[in-house]
């Protein structure tokens, strides 16, 4: 059985269509990723699946429950970890967990045992009685991971789980997240705009302008780019483009002053390319296709990671969580 089923889901904010009729399924135990730039509709989709936003049209079920009509059942089935913290800074780590356990009706003996185990796992056991406001960003995120798992959810939603964290902490968080599937058998549904993080997923949906433009395994997605990606800079890109077409029969395109083309064996092609071009070549780069290249090929735009500054994500979050476009 698919644990998440989404059919023609639509969400509008006034005249803006944030999610535009998307459909997909997520299998139990899968690590499923949503990849796309800010404002593509990732967080809005998660908001609807978590019962925080009402879908404008279409339907979605999570763990077999309808997100509109069976909100409480859906909520009991899911755990959430968001890009910005949702902890009470003036309570201790343990009290934050206790609040959660009580709200989700976890029997107290079980909650005690479970929170010990989870605090151990995220290496916060010795800080359990400290106020959360004394925690670093990475510690808070780890505490949220523990809290999100406390009530044994079938599926864990992670919305940009490592946004704004330093690389070392990001790696740390990811080790927990990937260990979870083995330990807990939980399905993971995450959004990210970090390409390297998306590589960890079993399947990825690439989302842009509220629509899913591709959905497959990372390796299949990369296979849709024809072989290797060659990027070169020359003094006269337009002339070089003509020469490449004439000599090698290859189409290339110019983007941001760089010429990009796809060839099956990039390493063998470069010497021929360098010999075949009459103008001066400033630089040549060849690499195996990345998800960045896939996104560029599918949408004609790059996912610019610098886009996701924290103020942007704040603004986006505030639009989504705080009000309907007000």
């Amino acid at each position: 059985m698919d644990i998440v089923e989404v059919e023609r889901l639509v969400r509008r904010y006034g005249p803006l269509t944030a999610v535009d009729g998307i459909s997909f399924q997520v299998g139990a135990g899968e690590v499923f990723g949503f990849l796309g730039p800010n404002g593509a509709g990732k967080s809005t989709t998660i908001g609807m699946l978590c019962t925080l936003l009402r879908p404008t049209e279409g339907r979605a079920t999570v763990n077999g429950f309808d997100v509109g009509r069976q909100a409480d059942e859906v909520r009991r089935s899911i755990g959430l970890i968001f890009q910005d913290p949702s902890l009470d800074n003036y309570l201790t780590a343990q009290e934050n967990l206790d609040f959660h356990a009580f709200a989700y009706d976890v029997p107290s003996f079980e909650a005690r045992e479970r929170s010990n185990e989870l605090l151990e796992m995220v290496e916060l056991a010795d800080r359990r009685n400290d106020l959360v406001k004394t925690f670093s960003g990475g510690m808070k995120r780890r505490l949220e991971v523990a809290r999100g798992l406390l009530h044994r959810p079938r599926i864990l939603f992670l919305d940009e789980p490592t946004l704004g964290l330093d690389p070392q902490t990001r790696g740390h968080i990811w080790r927990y997240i990937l260990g979870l599937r083995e330990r807990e058998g939980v399905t993971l549904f995450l959004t990210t705009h970090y390409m390297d993080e998306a590589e960890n997923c079993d399947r990825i949906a690439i989302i842009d302008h509220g629509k899913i433009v591709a959905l497959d395994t990372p390796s299949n997605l990369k296979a849709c780019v024809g072989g290797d990606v060659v990027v070169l800079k020359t003094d006269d890109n337009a002339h070089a483009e003509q020469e490449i077409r004439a000599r090698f029969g290859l189409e290339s395109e110019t983007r941001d002053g760089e010429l990009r083309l796809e060839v099956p064996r990039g390493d063998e092609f470069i010497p021929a390319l360098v010999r075949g071009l009459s103008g001066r070549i400033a630089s040549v780069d060849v690499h195996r296709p990345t998800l960045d290249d896939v996104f560029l090929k599918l949408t004609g735009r790059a996912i610019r990671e610098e886009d996701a500054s924290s103020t942007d994500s704040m603004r986006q979050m505030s639009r989504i969580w705080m009000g309907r476009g007000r």
Partner: protein
Amino acid sequence: MSGKRVRANLRGAYIVWYRDVLRYWRDRTRIAAALGQPVLYLFIFGTGLSSAFAVGRGAGGGAGLDYVRFMFPGVLAMTVIFTSIFSAMSIVWDREFGFLREILVAPMSRTAVAFGKALGGSTVACFQASIVLLLAPLVGIPLTPSLVLTVLPLLFLMAFCLSCVGIAIASKMRTMEAFQVVMNFFLMPLLFLSGAFFPLTGLPVWLEVLTRIDPAAYGVDPIRRAVLEAAGVDPAVVRAVGLTLFGETVSTGTEVVILGAFALLALTLAVRWFSAQE
């Protein structure tokens, strides 16, 4: 609603209430700071004004009533108004710092959350006002058990009503900046119009109308009646400074009903507006 759902919602309301009380109890500086203002009003403002403001002097030929004792119930009301509305409006902070989301995705209804929050605000406000009530003997009001038993439920009802008002406002409020606006254009008028600092008699019509639609006025008046009676003030003087509706003195029972109606209305609005947010 099924029994399971009712139970989940009761748990939800309880844990939201518990968190507010726990946070209040932990924050001793807040308790002390919130006590500072009433003390300031009572002993400096009150003592200073009592020479210029001889309330009810001569009415009924009694000895009159000094201003500090007159305003003591007002200071209790002030404590309740500020504490309950600010506690309820911590929803805005919770939204800003993200904890609101943890509450909103928990398997409990928005009604349960709003109700728990309202009870949390009223508990905290009532507790805070009780501390102020302990100052009563210092201004010549004996703290009899019957006075405490009369005043506490009234304080609680007023606190509940205002907490609901606070939740309703917080649900509509999107920015922290709006807070100052609410403070200046809503909270202060609510306090001034409640009769906390001057009797609501012999006012110009426009002001009289405004004071009669202030729910806090129906809390201040019965508390004042109880306090002044306990202090042994001449009943005629008490009546002279009491609230009137259409020229008639309003009984404590009627005031409780009116305050209850306001509370019900505010609770309805609070639940509706809080539930409407996404």
